[in-house]
């Protein structure tokens, strides 16, 4: 019997928008409870002969449990060419590979292959809310020491041995900050610390301090992640028949002098699982996650070895793990990036990834700064998302900041700027946005650095440094240009009333660039995060982030007291003049 089929609405959304010349793509999904859930796809370019860009390599970047499950064809008719057949043969997750066909009108039909025949099948659309509610991710962290000969063969062999060891059932896993341990086949117990019937979801609920009755918001920014670490059993099973009791001994083998590498392999890997998965079944999932991560590690190391050649002590860099959760894709992509390697050097790789995943080619998605799991440094990130979502109304356009930013406001960083630093803070918020979007690695500048920058470019006298002088939109523009190379558009409004006429322009700004806007002028500075515009009534509301907040980083206060919130056009002083700084983004990957 063929499985039931569900398709993530992320996939449907992406497929409906895609504009590609490729004829074929790969589908990725996972099985749960007799259902095949399609969570992602990639486009296959068959022009390049190199195996590296193929789906099997790409799959290593997906969370464990997600596997190749079928093919998507762009065209009118259902035919299978040789490449399609090849891909279909690699489908292991189900006996009934899936073929989705999409014609020019974006009509989508799904077929399972049953006994070499196509059977059209119905499918259910899986909403993002359901996805984040029913699925969670386990994140395995461990460090494996790598000591091997500094050759491709040496690395391959060593990593293969590590995979063998992990797959042999000798390793165990510990779910962080619990008493729950998972054991492999080498042990007769599979699980301790909880009931053998317990599910992952139950464990996660029991760990969270909140009452399960309290309604949780399930969305892409609330993806639940269960941290797990790997432990190794160092004692042998006394009752085992295979117990070898040879006393400790040391063997030294002399070799020709050769170079060895010694480095820690930081494994940080994800697996996507349904909440109803039994904890007992998590063991194999984690083993697969660890092995997948090691395979990715191997390919990254070997690529470096091949490229730069080692033995001279240079070249090889530690791979660092970054997890990405691009909002349009709706599943994690994990990348290993050599430590310290500049983003510019890796543009080609990122372009390939964008193309494979059908992502737009005009803004960064896979730079270090875009990573999902990121330290915010104590600042509130995207406080506006904590507000209740408003029902959409017809004729009303809502355009918001795209991606993440940090809320910078008065008194932060142990620095008293109460009364004069609001534009500086607004500027810092904008800066953080550029960092989070991956446009830059430059640290968010302090007040002093901002002042130094303005003196350096000749905008201000040197006495400006260390002063408490205000800055305005043009200064923000100068700094962004100098420190980030970002151009800004300045909008000048003579009065608060006139400001309203720029509403369509602001909508356009958020839709195209998506960066926060700094607004200053005759009065206080603020950050605009979004706009709501009714094209019939001209009624406009602004999503304002107020840098004059002096309290602690408490999201409840920030939202309830309106430090971040929607303001009507009365918010602006009718008689004062306003300057807006709209930072522009340039196409980049």
């Amino acid at each position, binding site marked *: 019997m063929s499985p039931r089929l569900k398709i993530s609405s992320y996939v449907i959304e992406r497929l409906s928008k895609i504009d590609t010349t490729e004829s074929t793509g790969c589908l990725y999904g996972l099985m749960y409870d007799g259902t095949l859930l399609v969570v992602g796809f990639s486009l296959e370019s068959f022009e390049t002969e190199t195996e590296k860009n193929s789906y099997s390599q790409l799959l290593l970047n997906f969370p464990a449990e997600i596997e190749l499950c079928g093919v998507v064809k762009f065209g009118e008719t259902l035919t299978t060419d040789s490449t399609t057949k090849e891909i279909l043969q690699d489908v292991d997750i189900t006996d009934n590979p899936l073929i989705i066909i999409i014609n020019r009108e974006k009509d989508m039909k799904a077929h399972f292959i049953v006994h070499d025949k196509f059977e059209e099948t119905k499918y259910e659309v899986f909403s993002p809310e359901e996805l984040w509610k029913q699925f969670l991710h386990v994140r395995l962290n*461990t*460090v*494996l*020491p790598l*000591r*091997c*000969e*500094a050759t491709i*063969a*040496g690395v391959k*062999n*060593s990593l293969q041995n590590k995979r063998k060891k992990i797959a042999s059932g000798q390793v*165990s896993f*510990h779910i962080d900050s619990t*008493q729950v*341990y998972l054991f492999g086949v080498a*042990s*007769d*117990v599979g699980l*301790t*610390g909880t009931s053998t019937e317990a599910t992952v979801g139950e464990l996660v609920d029991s760990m969270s301090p909140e009452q399960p009755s309290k309604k949780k918001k399930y969305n892409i920014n609330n993806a639940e992640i269960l941290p797990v*670490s*790997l*432990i*190794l*059993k*160092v*004692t*042998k*099973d*006394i*009752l085992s028949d295979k*117990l*070898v*009791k*040879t*006393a*400790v*001994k*040391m*063997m*030294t*083998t*002399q*070799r*020709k*002098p*050769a*170079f*060895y*590498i*010694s*480095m*820690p392999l*930081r494994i940080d890997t994800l697996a996507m699982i349904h909440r109803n998965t039994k904890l007992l079944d998590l063991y194999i999932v984690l083993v697969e996650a660890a092995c997948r991560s090691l395979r990715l590690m191997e390919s990254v190391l070997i690529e470096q070895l091949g490229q730069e050649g*080692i033995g001279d*002590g240079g070249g*090889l*860099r*530690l791979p660092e793990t970054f997890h990405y959760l691009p909002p349009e894709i709706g599943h994690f992509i994990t990348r290993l990036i050599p430590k310290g390697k500049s983003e510019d050097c890796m543009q080609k790789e990122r372009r390939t990834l964008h193309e494979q995943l059908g992502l737009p080619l005009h803004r960064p998605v896979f730079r270090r700064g875009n990573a999902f799991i990121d330290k915010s440094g104590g600042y509130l990130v995207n406080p506006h998302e904590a507000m209740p979502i408003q029902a959409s109304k017809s004729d009303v356009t809502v355009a918001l900041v795209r991606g993440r930013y940090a809320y910078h406001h008065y008194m932060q960083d142990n620095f008293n700027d109460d009364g004069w630093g609001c534009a500086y803070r607004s500027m810092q918020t904008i800066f953080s946005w550029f960092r989070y979007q991956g446009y830059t690695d430059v640290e968010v500048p302090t007040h002093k650095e901002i002042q130094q920058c303005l003196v350096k470019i000749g905008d201000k006298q040197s006495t400006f440094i260390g002063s408490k002088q205000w800055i305005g939109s043009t200064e923000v523009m100068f700094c962004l240009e100098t420190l980030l190379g970002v151009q800004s558009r300045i909008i000048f409004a003579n009065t608060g009333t006139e400001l309203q006429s720029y509403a369509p322009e602001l909508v356009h700004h958020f839709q195209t660039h998506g960066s926060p806007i700094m607004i200053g002028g005759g009065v206080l500075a603020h950050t605009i995060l979004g706009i709501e515009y009714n094209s019939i009534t001209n009624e406009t509301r602004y999503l304002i982030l107020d840098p004059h907040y002096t309290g602690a980083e408490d999201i409840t206060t920030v939202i309830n007291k309106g430090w971040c919130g929607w303001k009507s056009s009365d918010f602006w002083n009718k008689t004062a003049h306003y300057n807006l700084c709209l930072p522009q983004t340039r196409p980049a990957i």
Partner: protein
Amino acid sequence: MPRTVYSPEHCLQYLEQYASKEIFAIGLILGQMTDARENVIHLARTPEEKGSEIGIESNYGLDKSEIAKNLSSVSEAWIADHARHVTRMLPGGMFVQGIFVTSDEDVFEDPNCFSKLRSTLNHIYKGLSINEYMFGNCPYSNERLILHMSTSTKVLTCKSLEVGGLNKNTTLKPVEWKFSPKALSWQRLDCYYEFDEIYPVIVKNSGVSVKNQFQQILESAHKIIESSVMFIDGELKDGSESLDQLIKKKKTKTNTKLTQNEAPKSMHVSLFVPYENTLPETVEYLECEGSIHFSGVVSSSVFIYPKATVKEAIAAVKQDIVRSLASRFTMHCDALIDDNLLPEEKICFNEPPRRVLVPVGSLYLCDYLFPGEAPAEALLSVRELLDLKITETDVICDVETPADTSEFDALDRDASSEELLATPQEASQFMYITGLCFAMLVLLVSIIIHYYDGIIQVLSKIFPKS
């Protein structure tokens, strides 16, 4: 309330055998200290000293010239040496807890005797702290016991004295010494700790000596073992629970009937280590001239007072593994002729002695046998160091097995991707030859020791003194 120490009754007879013959004797008190109770397991008289100091092993039991007749003639260094050797034989959780004396002096009143006792205890303390991985000094208390039986009055007195402190004017504290008629039943905990590590031999480092390499292995093993999580019978236990509670719980769980006098079953211990990062966060390039494969098991059997806590048992197991490793390495290095890790040969084996168990009272202590040594060797150490007679069949030799060469071949093949300079055949031949040579040597030495008196007599007959 004074400190109370519980001792098996045979210790009384042991002391009386010396006291009744009015023999001066000094020796070590071996025992275990837990929060629940302090137990003595054995008293071991220090063997008589031999004049010269050429390797302690051969010294013991050969010479009868210098018998200490009273406390003042006792060598503190000699007793401290005894304590170091005995510590190797103790499982984790057991320590040299003090000294006993049978003499006609009133050792606690006589200022000369008292200062001698104090300096002896301090010598022992210092001797045991040389190698931290031996866990020679009981970590729970610095108060050491002095047990005295007067040969004239047969009165038994026990007191304690602080050691290792800077305070020179430490005072004696009273200790209550109690004999328990019934043999104590110990809770046994067993495990096999497995090693399987490969290290590069780095020429630039000075670490090409066997001793250094062993020291490095010991350090890293200690670190890893300290960070490990211990399970008892497959489960994580609450550290504050007592061991006998675990048994009771299990009994009620499985609903088996409690039978009287049933010896408590051994508990199986498993250790889990987090993959801990001891490497620096960089890629290191090392020029190396070979690899070291350290592999095999350390068998561990510890004996704990059943009312002791899980936490105390865990500490004992961890001590035991590290102590056993340290003991083997010390013994191996003491017997080494060539300390070079990379000698002329392409492949070089270092086989430290393996552990065997020897019965003492109702529990087991241990001894170590070099490759080729027979279990009878253990009888010698037990007799000399523990002042105890056991038979060859008492020695449990199969807790660990000596390495066999075929295993080395197999290990060697998968140990490296690189081609070996030496073929496995060469390696095994080398092994056989060294093994055989060693066995022959051991045989020869033991014959000489065994028939020492006879040989001397024969020789003196053949070559009569002119």
